[in-house]
């Protein structure tokens, strides 16, 4: 008796649904084992990681604070990933969006204050999109690999931020800390409820998801991108522009990351410092894949990945477990998800000589 792998004839809806669920379950299993190996009681620690942080209203709102940038960025990146455009520099685009938005917030004349937030929003969008646009320009005009360019640009954006907060934008009254002055009151987002840190960005995240759903499930633009991603020669045959797809894919992801940068700067942060993101731009890539590049999936994936952040902070406080454990969980989840996806398109078939 032996087994053989064969492609499924019709995509299995059940497997499609189960794959991420199984991946999450296995991540918990491996995570528990990992805690055990590190010498912590697995069940106890998993509870502290995944349940305790969200068992209070405050904890839940903190989860939303982390989930919002992940969801916004992942929604934008999914558009590109569907077209096989590999923007993995969202972290840098978020940084540039935050820089542009903060720049407007700090230096706009007071006459503009009544519309300061919308201006900052646009600045963030443009900043992120422009940073991704460099990669799109190089790819379409000069045939340069966008993966490497977006990544290198991420390092450059990080150094640029560091330069600004240590140099020209440093708060003169900031005791020499590498950070800018606080944004003016008009440039800061009010929390929806003064008890918590959640802002209107939650609403925007939902809008982004709806937009993604419309684009991917119904729109002709989304259809063209998916054809280009799945079968480039078929896209050429149909007359769908390859360069257009590259531009759309990169600019959408960049704009989304830039907007997320705006929301971070004007929301929880209120100012720029040398480090403004705990790796949202990279984690959003995982969110996009965990969510299978679809809107409902990204919603769930964003919440789960956000949980790895708050859980990591939680177990650091309660058990003294180093917080980078968060990225171990994230990587593990992505690995397992990719592996489980295999069973969406393939299945194991039992073969015996007699039955063949």
């Amino acid at each position: 008796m032996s087994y053989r792998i064969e492609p499924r004839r019709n995509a299995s809806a059940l497997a499609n649904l189960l794959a991420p669920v199984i991946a999450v379950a296995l991540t918990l299993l491996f995570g528990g084992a990992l805690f055990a190996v590190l010498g912590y009681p697995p069940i106890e620690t998993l509870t502290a990681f995944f349940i305790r942080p969200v068992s209070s209203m405050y904890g839940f709102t903190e989860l939303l604070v982390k989930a919002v940038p992940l969801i916004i960025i992942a929604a934008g990146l999914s558009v590109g990933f569907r077209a096989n455009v590999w923007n993995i520099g969202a972290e840098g685009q978020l940084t540039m969006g935050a820089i542009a938005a903060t720049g407007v917030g700090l230096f706009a004349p007071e006459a503009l204050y009544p519309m300061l937030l919308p201006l900052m929003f646009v600045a963030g969008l443009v900043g992120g999109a422009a940073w991704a646009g460099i990669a799109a320009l190089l790819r379409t005009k000069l045939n340069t690999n966008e993966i490497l360019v977006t990544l290198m640009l991420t390092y450059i954006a990080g150094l640029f931020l560091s330069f600004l907060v240590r140099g020209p934008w440093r708060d003169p009254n900031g005791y020499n800390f590498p950070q800018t002055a606080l944004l003016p009151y008009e440039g800061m987002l009010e929390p929806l409820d003064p008890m918590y840190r959640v802002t209107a960005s939650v609403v925007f995240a939902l809008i982004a998801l709806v937009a993604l759903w419309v684009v991917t499930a119904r729109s002709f633009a989304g259809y063209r991108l998916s054809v280009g991603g799945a079968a480039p020669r078929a896209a050429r045959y149909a007359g769908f522009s390859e360069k257009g797809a590259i531009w759309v894919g990169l600019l959408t992801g960049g704009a989304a990351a830039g907007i997320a940068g705006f929301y971070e700067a004007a929301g929880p942060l209120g100012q720029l410092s040398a480090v403004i993101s705990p790796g949202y731009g990279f984690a959003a890539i995982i969110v996009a894949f965990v969510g299978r590049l679809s809107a409902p999936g990204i919603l769930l994936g964003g919440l789960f990945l956000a949980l790895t952040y708050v859980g990591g902070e939680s177990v650091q406080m309660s058990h003294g477990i180093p917080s980078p454990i968060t990225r171990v969980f994230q990587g593990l989840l992505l690995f397992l998800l990719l592996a489980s996806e295999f069973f969406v398109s393939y299945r194991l078939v039992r073969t015996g000589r007699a039955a063949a």
Partner: protein
Amino acid sequence: MTARLQLAGVSKAYPGVVANDDISLSVAGGEIHAILGENGAGKSTLMKIIYGVTTPDAGEIRYDGKLLEAHSPGQSRALGIEMVYQHFSLFETVSVAENVALCLEGRLDLPALRLRIRETAARYGLAVDPDRIVMDLSMGERQQLEILRCLMRDPRLLILDEPTSVLSPQAVEQLFTVLRRIAAEGCSIIYISHKLDEVRALCHAATVLRGGRVTGEVDPRQATSHELAVMMVGSDLPIPERPASTPSATPRLSLRGLSGRPLGLAGRRLQDISLDLFGGEVVGIAGISGNGQSELAACLSGEALCPAGQVLLGETPVGQMRPDARRRAGLAYVPEERLGRGAVPGQSLTANTVLTGYASGLVRHGMVRFAEARRRASAVIERFSVKADGPGALASSLSGGNLQKFILGRELALAPDVLVVAQPTWGVDVGAAAFIRQRLIDLSRDGAAVLVFSEELDELIEICDRIHVLSEGQLSEAVPREEATKDRLGALMTGGELGPVAEPAE
């Protein structure tokens, strides 16, 4: 004397299809034995069984009298059985000698190997230079290298699967000379083909397959082409109906001195191609792939751009228009690659209907009308009797012939003024091929202009009103249907002049 290879009662079924049903045959030493049959007759499965790629459900295989059971390709090679696949299995980026080395065991000693290659090549009259990179070889040279690779291992049974499908008539002649020499040295050859003339010219014996069964065992040198064809197809070849037609007054598609390398440096240079295609006619472009077919087709479809005035749809210069714009102007195109180009493998037939139907009502206000697309896909499936699991079936789940019917049906549903089709019946079974050919004729009789690229001369002669030959990037003058014979077209394919009209050969 024991036969070199003897099959008795070999059967093999796949889900839904019996590929081989109780097949028996016998090949003597030094014999060139043809396995003759249409696409889908079960030839390839049978070869895979002999070579050990696939295990039969029933029956036995004897090689030199010894029973072969559950043997692997590796064991076959150890026994002296070699196989040359229809699509070459050479490595393009390495040299001829390295390609040979990869088939032999032992240390890599290229200088010694080069000598051996030269010796073997000289012995069989093969023109193979061990130092050349495969990428630079012509199709004929590659075929010779494939065979040389086998000869280096002193085979006793050589299996050739459709070896002439990419060869020019001259290269075919050279190949036959080599094969006769190999057989004369005692090696048996199994020659798989659906080309009657070749089998009659080369083979000592023939086993004819149809629908997985043996329908005849003959000496092809004695049998007539007609007898063989009846065994192969089951009845007389279906002859399409070709009602007379009058071409439109003005051309629907015109080429005016189309020149250059539309697909970049690696492609073939087109040389001053001019052509007028009228409504109501089917025009054929004959010739072996690699002579500019892909380049010319890409210039027509819009996948490659060229100077605007070199391609005209009606009066409109379209050389600089992309495929979507040309489609809006009434052009439809069926490419030779179905999966990955004509259709997106991982998407449903409904989604694949949108691929070319977006310009004709399947997109409104930027949104895809999937319900309408689904209706259209269902209609195509029904009208063209496509065997598929409804419009939701993935394109990759269809067989080659069914996918071709779907793609052709999808394009015909657009009611094009001009249809360009490349290799319409490649890998399609006899019934479906006849169906497709009839649809092409019908479309032209409804007033459209149809241009067909094909390597199958019989097919072109059957359906076309006139035939051009594309050879080395040059388009020959037209041969009217009444004067078209395989010999005359073959002469044009090798770059010769159009000879005098010969008497019909058969």
